[in-house]
């Protein structure tokens, strides 16, 4: 039975208001009663409740809920909700005094936390962030779903968002992320305190091209490196959400990939929750990657792949359109919303507050003293000591600072009196931010130290990369001539130049570094007096030198486009702005090659006052680093040098002060070779962006209140030139290209992964492993005694790296991988036994041939050390990899729909993944199906679900493989069946199961028979609109006023049709003509002749002339014998039979011009046109069906036959009038039907313009009008 869902806004609103009283929000602590709707009833599971809520939504409501700005639905008590919030290192928000909120605490960021190597610390930080998030949520100003953490391992330090990642090694990234996820979600087993989303899934590791690029890699790199953190978080921490990224992976946009999102994340790893697209990622499917052509197709691609929420407006604008086009089903929409609402319910949003442990956070929690104290404590545990020597003339090492011996300190550098919070930072209270200068001032005062403090900020952090984005240039002459050149269409350029638009709309030349250039051939420079360049300053800007002939050629103009010179900026999202400069006319004749050469502004000279301050102090502490202008979202670094003149500053200070301490705060690795070994640089301390309390933490560390215990979370390369192209996502070395990360990089480095020294020293001894023969099923413990042999209490991070020396060389296994670590605090003189547990199941590799996890057999050497290079001892075990027997791990069951109507059935599909990340053959497994409520929905032994009556049920599939049983389940809601119980005409029943259009032939009459009907479910409304007369149609609607769904039945009263041989001189009385053009219409020579004119009936073209029609409001067969004066040609000539309700609701069977649709058999190029037979149906203006068959040869005569039975139309054709070939069928409910003939020229459409390859010989010109001659029109009514 065909159902039609029609939105009836007027009825919906009045019904909804009535309903609102019964489904309003359950007030706090109101008990569940019999009238409590399921979605508010805490006795049901979250998923059951979510599916009930979704089943009550109208179509427009559903569409409005598919974006991150989820609409309020007052009639169901659903508040508006913004899925997008951020909490990477503090809630991304500002103060809101109107609701009593201070600016949220800004904690140390990801790179800083990654260098702490302390997941419990990160869990504490995240827990406090979640407390503040709850307090903010209580004020109704933000949601609880946070798109944090970033779990991408740092593949390349140039990545603009390196500062958001926890580390280079996937194990470190995963372990630290796990702390964040646990802290944010909270300990309660029922409710989540806040909802983390791991991103960006996956391999989004370069910014400049992220909207259009493909990260290409083999399955080993994919599984072992890029996907590893997601696998760990989903399997071990029940991660409830991931964000699909902008980029493609192996040429498939992740946001459109069922493989990546469903097969791997959900079915292999077992993710239960929601997937959000990155903002505009759905749009990128068709505008960035051109993976599909339209927004509707992108909507379909995203929803079907499993992206539940679109941060953007593609879903919210095109979901209904995609549904109407048949690209998605209602089930696709429902599934996405069920996932979204299940997560919202898991936060307790729909539950009485007394049940949810996280609802009692007052506004005062935000930036409380506790939060601030924790921010400061964390900031003391992130710094990494890279160097600490005895300065010349001193007795002790530079650090910790000797408060007794030091009388003067100079704080120098651009970060000495600044707080750099880094990416995705909220806006904390100014009073909570402490610069290093403020921190030192307070520290000295609090401790009563006799130290003079001098601040000499000096230095700059002006970026030397990503100087400019250039869109165009114009050359102006005195006569007013202006010629414009698209800058992105350069003839050639220096290495590294890219073209893109990023999040903006304008294509620009990008990745401009100091010395980059672009060249343009054949430029007319004769008499040019001015050049205007359209450019954008994303960071600090640069200088454009306009030269001729070469990058060093004659300089004819210079434009200084820098922030410092006061030029307006556009930012990374902005469009270009024009800047002008005069051109030095040098008498050029003929076309020239013009060069735009881009230069960074000159480094500023070091202020002599700074040098003086350094010279006159006992210690010079130089605060240097990066900031959001160095690299950020949408902008990678092109260089790893410290930006601005900071290296110059360090050298200048070291020149005059033998005790120069360098404190660096950066987003990650910077090149340090120029200064790290300078004798006068006595110490180097590094942190990632260290939060609002960075300035308070630093003096504590430098004076020794806290011993630095951090370790680098990434390799610090000597030079950016050691790295492969940033666009290269492969990891292993080959063909002269270096490998990446500690796994595969072999060249010398400045500092290795895991490096960091201390004020004290540690010795390792007694290395032990709990088992020397291991299998993947074992859990082992590696123990080592660590003794603090120095003079300060301190933390050590014991690191365990795994190597497999017996692995075949051809497999190119990683040199080593981090597989365990622990940060321990050891007082002076004490020894601590550090036990590190390792799950041998985690020691896997990926078998690319078998596409599954594997374990090499042989020695597994565990290197125990203080860094990846400082190995203090090893223990070895022998792995029996062949003993690995994969077990059942994740079972996912679903039936393809979330909402059913009583009477419907659906087949459960089940997948089972194994512990080797492959899939079991489910047909060989033992599967048992159970329904939690068989009265609502039953399930048979084969998983066939039958919807019985209104309610919710959970269907569970218990799968057993090799004795292990794992379950997967899904919830469904059964809505009442929109079916009739009775249907009578003048008291006589006509109801037949499965039919929704009835045909009754009567004599014409001014009074129509009376139709009555009742619905099967008494909760549904039945509305009958009687026919006015015969012929006429009575419409019966069965309406569900809760969902506004309805089904429609038509009882068509028709009169007997009139066949016509057209032997007269005019049309008979039975005929009427729509849009009559008498000059093109005639009855003569025994035929009805229609000469075609421009126009058609298809889609927006409702202008076909001369539709010759008669009443045919019943079931029938209509036939005609047709000949045309020429074969139908362009643009879309067609003639034939039509069943017509109106211009937007019809079925036509026509002889038409040739069709070039997908899958058509194409004629040879140059072959004559043969025409086609087409069946086209439109339903409410939407194309429902198009079936077309190209004929083998042009037809002199063609016989067309269309059979109507209820809503079904069957089309056939014949070339001899005897043997008919079925063309196709369609179903469409038409009312007050007319039937007859038509002939028209058609209109040109876009599809017709896309000539298939090889068809260039075809004539695309519009054909002259043709005359269609209908020898007869025969109509045979069916039934009675």
């Amino acid at each position, binding site marked *: 039975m065909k159902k039609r869902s029609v939105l009836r806004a*007027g009825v919906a609103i009045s019904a909804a208001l009535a309903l609102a009283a019964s489904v309003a929000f359950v007030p706090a602590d109101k008990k569940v009663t019999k009238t409590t709707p399921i979605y508010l009833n805490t006795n049901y599971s979250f998923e059951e409740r979510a599916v009930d809520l979704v089943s009550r939504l109208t179509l427009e409501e559903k569409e409005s809920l598919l974006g991150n700005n989820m609409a309020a639905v007052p009639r169901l008590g659903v508040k508006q909700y913004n899925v997008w919030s951020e909490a990477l290192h503090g809630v991304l928000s500002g103060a809101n005094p109107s609701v009593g909120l201070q600016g949220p605490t800004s904690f140390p960021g990801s790179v800083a936390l990654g260098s702490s190597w302390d997941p419990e610390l990160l869990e504490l930080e995240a827990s406090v962030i979640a407390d503040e998030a709850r307090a903010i949520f209580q004020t109704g100003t933000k949601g609880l779903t946070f798109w944090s953490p970033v779990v991408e391992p740092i593949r390349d330090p140039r990545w603009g968002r390196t500062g958001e990642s926890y580390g280079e090694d996937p194990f470190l990234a995963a372990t630290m992320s796990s702390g964040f996820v646990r802290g944010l979600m909270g300990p309660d087993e029922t409710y989540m305190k806040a909802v983390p989303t791991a991103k960006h899934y996956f391999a989004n590791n370069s910014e400049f091209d992220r909207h259009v690029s493909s990260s290409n890699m083999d399955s080993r790199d994919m599984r072992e490196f890029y996907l590893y953190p997601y696998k760990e978080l989903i399997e071990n921490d029940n991660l409830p959400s991931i964000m699909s990224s902008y980029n493609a992976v192996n040429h498939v946009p992740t946001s459109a990939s069922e493989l990546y999102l469903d097969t791997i994340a959900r079915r292999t790893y077992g993710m239960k929750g929601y997937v959000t697209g990155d903002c505009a990622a759905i749009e990128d499917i068709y505008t960035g990657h051109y993976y599909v052509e339209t927004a509707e197709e992108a909507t379909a691609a995203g929803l079907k792949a499993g992206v539940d929420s679109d941060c953007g407006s593609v879903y919210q604008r095109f979901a209904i359109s995609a549904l109407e086009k048949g690209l998605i089903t209602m089930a696709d929409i429902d599934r996405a919303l069920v996932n979204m609402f299940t997560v919202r319910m898991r936060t307790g949003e729909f539950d009485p507050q007394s049940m949810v442990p996280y609802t009692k956070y007052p506004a005062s929690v935000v930036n409380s003293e506790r939060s601030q104290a924790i921010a400061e404590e964390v900031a003391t545990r992130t710094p990494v000591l890279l160097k600490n020597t005895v300065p010349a003339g001193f007795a002790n090492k530079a650090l910790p600072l000797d408060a007794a011996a030091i009388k003067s300190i100079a704080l120098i550098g651009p970060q000495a009196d600044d707080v750099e919070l880094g990416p995705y930072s909220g806006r904390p209270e100014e009073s909570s931010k402490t610069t290093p200068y403020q921190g030192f001032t307070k520290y000295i005062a609090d401790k009563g130290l006799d130290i003079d403090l001098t601040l000499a900020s000096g230095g700059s952090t002006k970026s030397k990369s990503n100087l400019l984005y250039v869109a165009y240039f114009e050359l102006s002459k005195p006569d007013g001539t202006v010629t414009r050149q698209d800058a992105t269409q350069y003839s050639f350029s220096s290495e590294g130049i890219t073209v893109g638009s990023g999040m903006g709309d304008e294509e620009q030349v990008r990745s401009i570094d100091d010395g980059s250039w672009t060249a343009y051939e054949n430029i007319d420079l004769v008499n040019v007096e001015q050049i205007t360049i359209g450019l954008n300053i994303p960071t600090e800007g640069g200088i454009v030198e306009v030269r001729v002939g070469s990058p060093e050629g004659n300089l004819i103009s210079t434009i200084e486009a820098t922030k410092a010179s006061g030029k307006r900026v556009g930012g990374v999202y902005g469009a270009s702005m024009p800047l002008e400069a005069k051109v030095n006319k040098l008498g050029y004749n003929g076309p020239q090659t013009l060069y735009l050469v881009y230069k960074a502004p000159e480094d500023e000279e070091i202020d002599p006052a700074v040098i003086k301050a350094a010279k006159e102090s006992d210690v010079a502490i130089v605060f240097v680093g990066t900031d959001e202008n160095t690299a950020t979202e949408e902008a990678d670094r092109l260089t790893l040098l410290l930006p601005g003149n900071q290296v110059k500053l360090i050298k200048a200070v070291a020149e005059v002060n033998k005790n120069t301490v360098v404190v660096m705060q950066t987003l990650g690795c910077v090149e340090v070779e120029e200064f790290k070994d300078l004798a006068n640089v006595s110490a180097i301390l590094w942190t990632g962006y260290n939060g609002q309390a960075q300035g308070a933490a630093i003096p504590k560390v430098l004076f020794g209140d806290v011993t630095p215990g951090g370790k680098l979370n990434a390799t610090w390369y000597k030079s950016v030139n050691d790295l492969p192209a940033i666009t290269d996502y492969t990891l292993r070395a080959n063909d002269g290209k270096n490998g990446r990360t500690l796994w595969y990089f072999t060249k010398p480095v400045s500092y290795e992964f895991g490096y960091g020294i201390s004020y004290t020293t540690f010795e390792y001894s007694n290395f032990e492993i709990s088992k020397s023969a291991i299998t993947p099923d074992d859990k082992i413990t590696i123990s080592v005694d660590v003794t603090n042999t120095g003079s300060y209490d301190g933390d050590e991070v014991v690191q365990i790296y795994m190597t497999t020396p017996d692995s075949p060389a051809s497999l190119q296994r990683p040199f080593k991988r981090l597989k365990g670590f622990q940060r321990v605090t050891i007082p002076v003189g004490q020894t601590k036994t550090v036990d590190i547990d390792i799950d041998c199941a985690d020691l896997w590799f990926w078998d690319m041939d078998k596409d599954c996890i594997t374990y090499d057999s042989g020695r597994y050497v565990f290197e125990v050390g203080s860094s990846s290079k400082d190995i203090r001892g090893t223990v070895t075990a022998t792995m029996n990899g062949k003993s690995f027997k994969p077990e059942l791990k994740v079972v996912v069951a679903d039936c393809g729909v979330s909402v059913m109507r009583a009477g419907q059935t659906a087949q459960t599909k089940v997948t089972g993944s194994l512990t080797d990340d492959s899939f079991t053959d489910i047909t060989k497994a033992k599967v048992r199906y159970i329904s939690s409520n068989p009265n609502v929905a039953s399930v048979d032994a084969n998983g066939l679900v039958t919807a019985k009556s209104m309610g919710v049920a959970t269907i569970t599939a218990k799968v057993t493989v090799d004795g292990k049983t794992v379950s997967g389940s899904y919830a469904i809601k059964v809505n009442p069946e929109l079916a009739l119980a009775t249907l009578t005409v003048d008291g006589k029943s006509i109801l037949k199961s499965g039919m929704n259009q009835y045909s009754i032939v009567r004599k014409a009459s001014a009074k129509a028979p009376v139709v009555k009907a009742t619905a099967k479910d008494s909760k549904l409304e039945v509305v009958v609109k009687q026919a006015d007369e015969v012929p006429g149609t009575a419409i019966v609607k069965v309406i569900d006023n809760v969902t506004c769904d309805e089904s429609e039945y038509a009882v068509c009263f028709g009169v007997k049709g009139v066949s016509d041989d057209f032997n007269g001189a005019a049309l008979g009385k039975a005929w009427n003509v729509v849009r009559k053009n008498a000059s093109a219409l005639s009855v003569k020579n025994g035929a009805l002749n229609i000469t075609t004119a421009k126009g058609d009936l298809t889609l927006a073209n409702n202008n076909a002339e001369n539709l010759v029609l008669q009443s045919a409001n019943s079931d029938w067969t209509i036939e005609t014998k047709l000949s045309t004066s020429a074969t139908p040609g362009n643009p879309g000539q067609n003639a034939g039979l039509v069943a017509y309700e109106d211009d937007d609701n019809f079925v036509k069977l026509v002889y038409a011009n040739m069709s070039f649709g997908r899958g058509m058999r194409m004629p040879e190029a140059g072959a004559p046109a043969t025409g086609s037979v087409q069946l086209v149906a439109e339903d409410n203006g939407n194309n429902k069906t198009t079936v077309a068959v190209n004929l083998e040869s042009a037809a002199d005569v063609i016989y067309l036959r269309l059979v109507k039975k209820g809503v079904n139309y069957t089309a056939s054709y014949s070339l001899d009038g005897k043997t008919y070939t079925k063309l196709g069928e369609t179903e469409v409910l038409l009312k007050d039907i007319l039937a007859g003939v038509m002939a028209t020229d058609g209109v040109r459409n876009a599809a017709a313009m896309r000539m298939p390859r090889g068809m260039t010989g075809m004539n695309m010109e519009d054909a002259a009008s043709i005359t269609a001659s209908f020898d007869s029109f025969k109509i045979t009514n069916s039934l009675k």
Partner: protein
Amino acid sequence: MKRLLRIAVISLAMSFSWSGFAADGGPDIKGKVVCTASLDKMKYLVTDAGEIASTRDGITWKTFDFNENYAGYYGHVDFSCICMSGLNILAAGTYEDGRPAVFVSTRGTVWSERSLTYKINGQTYELEAAPLGAAYDASLDRYVLECTDGIYFVLPNCSHCNQIGFQMTEDISRLSFNRKRE
């Protein structure tokens, strides 16, 4: 005073161009029309009573009382403008506390609020200026708000990617685009 005058001029001009507006049925509204928008056969208007009315044929109107329908969910909104893209409708104004409010809908009866955050140098801010008018830029598929303080605020497809375009010295009185989306 300048803003009131501008609204009055808009209402006056639009009523002249709408035949049958008052005489032949017209929308059943309580408030005064503050802004209208039309595209193909669809017409929308907003009133100073928080109503959004629409018609497909110029004769049959539907009125949606935004503030009544969303009482207790969104705050009370004083609308100042409405705009259509052909794909959805945007209505903007201010909350009672003066904060800007922007809503979008595809069919006029379900409205979701549009975030008004934007970024400068990596820092996120919220729009504070009030919308006075809106236009749809078809060539780039984005809405643009004309706001107080001379601010031109861009709302692209991506709800994360709003931009402050530029700031004029005076309020922008009207904005329109004429390129079709290709």
